[in-house]
């Protein structure tokens, strides 16, 4: 066996143009990207949820802290939930200083991700326009721009003329019912290929020894010493996880689920301030690229971006009724089409290809719940509402630090579960998404 052959068996093949040419000429198959191993009976930590948050947490546990005896369990396949359903937008132009600092770190990690993980995540730093249709939202845009600038994040408020120059397809005249008065322009914002992020983290974590267990559903979290039934609840500690493939003993369980976050936490006796709402999105047929930036309108409940393939991706606000059902609705499509045409009348003949929805865990203040809980060894990285994807790298990094050091890192301290006891909420309703 040649030296190259031996190396290829030990580490994942490097993704590069040379590797592509070499494998193409030899006619080789690319090996499986991550292993499919038997479930062991004990791990140092178990991460529940194989989406970007769970995989990033496992990756940073292994890379930054050398904790590699980690299992990521998911009841379906990796990236099957919100990680593969979001509209892939990343940005850092939030409203509170806590939020801005946090999401800015995430954006930095996204910018270096392709090199770190050796996978093309198609990070496209194309700029992000948040439109204002009335005086009060223009005022919020100015507020956000000033908070952003203080934190060193590039944001500014621009007028209709400049908006027209950046995105000519937008109707910036005074004709629409909700004319565009200005926008918060955030050049570092953009879109990323969300599947590649999932695969990249999974591949890198697997290489360092983390095990990914798909189709492994968590049935119960085993605790002892708590004041609730079966030793669960505040004051207790985690001793293991019961799955449909057998019991695992572990001192640490990190809940990185979306949608089912409340149900998983209830297994450890922890109640969360979370309700589950579906969010619907849709995509059109591909056309020539004409929309250079991400466009968001809070008043019209819509955000729009054009993929590199040319499809327009639309996202909306969460559905008003809390449910675990992810059926789409005609009201959504009608409302979406009306609102998009209000912004861009020129695309009225475009056809929608498909619509889908994913589950969002909404918290009262539109900020996540991260860190330790009253149950020792049970950590949460949940409540990610409509903004989980853009925060995945920094969440993984900070949650891994919390697990490894046993202390809450400074960046996520404002998002602790205990803030609902102390009343120190982090109000991001104005900047978290659209139309709440």
């Amino acid at each position, binding site marked *: 066996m040649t030296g190259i052959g031996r190396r290829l068996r030990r580490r994942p093949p490097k993704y590069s143009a040379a590797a592509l040419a070499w494998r193409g000429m030899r006619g080789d198959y690319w090996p499986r990207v991550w292993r499919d191993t038997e479930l062991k009976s004990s791990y140092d930590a178990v991460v529940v949820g194989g989406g970007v948050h769970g995989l990033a947490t496992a990756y940073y546990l292994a890379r930054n802290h050398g904790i590699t005896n980690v299992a990521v369990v998911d009841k379906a396949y990796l990236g099957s939930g919100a990680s593969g359903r979001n509209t892939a937008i990343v940005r850092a132009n939030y409203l509170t200083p806590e939020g801005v600092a946090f999401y800015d770190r995430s954006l930095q990690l996204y910018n270096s991700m392709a090199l770190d993980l050796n996978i093309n995540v198609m990070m496209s730093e194309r700029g992000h326009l948040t439109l204002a249709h009335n005086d009060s939202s223009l005022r919020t845009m100015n507020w956000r721009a000033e908070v952003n600038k203080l934190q060193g994040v590039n944001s500014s408020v621009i007028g209709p003329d400049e908006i027209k120059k950046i995105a000519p397809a937008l109707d910036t005249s005074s004709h629409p019912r909700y004319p565009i008065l200005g926008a918060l322009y955030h050049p570092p914002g953009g879109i990323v290929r969300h599947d590649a992020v999932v695969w990249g983290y999974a591949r890198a974590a697997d290489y360092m020894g983390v095990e990914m267990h798909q189709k492994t559903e968590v049935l119960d979290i085993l605790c002892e010493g708590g004041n609730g039934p079966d030793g669960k609840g505040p004051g207790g500690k985690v001793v293991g996880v019961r799955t449909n493939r057998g019991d695992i003993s572990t001192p640490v369980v990190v809940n990185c689920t979306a949608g089912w976050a409340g149900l998983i936490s209830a297994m450890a006796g922890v*109640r969360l301030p979370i309700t*589950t709402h579906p969010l619907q999105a849709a995509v059109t047929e591909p056309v020539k690229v004409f929309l250079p930036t991400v466009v968001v309108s809070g008043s019209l409940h819509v955000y729009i971006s054009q993929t590199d393939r040319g499809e327009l991706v639309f996202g909306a606000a969460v559905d008003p009724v809390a449910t675990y059902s992810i059926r789409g609705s*005609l009201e959504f499509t009608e409302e979406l089409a009306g609102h998009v045409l209000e912004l861009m009348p020129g695309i009225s003949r475009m056809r929608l290809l498909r619509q889908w929805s994913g589950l969002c865990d909404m918290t009262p203040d539109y900020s996540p719940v991260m860190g330790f809980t009253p149950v020792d060894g049970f950590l949460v990285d949940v409540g990610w509402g409509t903004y989980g994807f853009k925060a995945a790298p920094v969440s993984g990094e900070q949650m891994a630090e919390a697990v490894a050091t046993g202390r809450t890192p400074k960046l996520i301290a404002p998002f602790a579960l205990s803030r609902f006891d102390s009343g120190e909420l982090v109000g991001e309703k104005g900047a978290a998404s659209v139309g709440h």
Partner: protein
Amino acid sequence: MLLVPCPNCGPRNSADLRYGGESHARPDPATATPQQWRGYLYLRDNPAGWLRETWYCRSGCRRWFTLERNTATNEFRTPPMPGDKRGGKA
């Protein structure tokens, strides 16, 4: 679309109503601790199954009422008694 069985107006599109969320008994103001108030304000059971919840029929009878809905299938059950108040006991 959800077809919500309003006790006064019959089945209505959910867009005609306002969703009030999980229904819990309000703590007694005379004896409740801050902890209980915070729990009442923020913490939710959020089950994937039968949930007791409130609705407001904003374009019909303009009354709050309580229903039970399966959050996994969106099926409703137990037609409520008229005059049920938001957050009231069953």
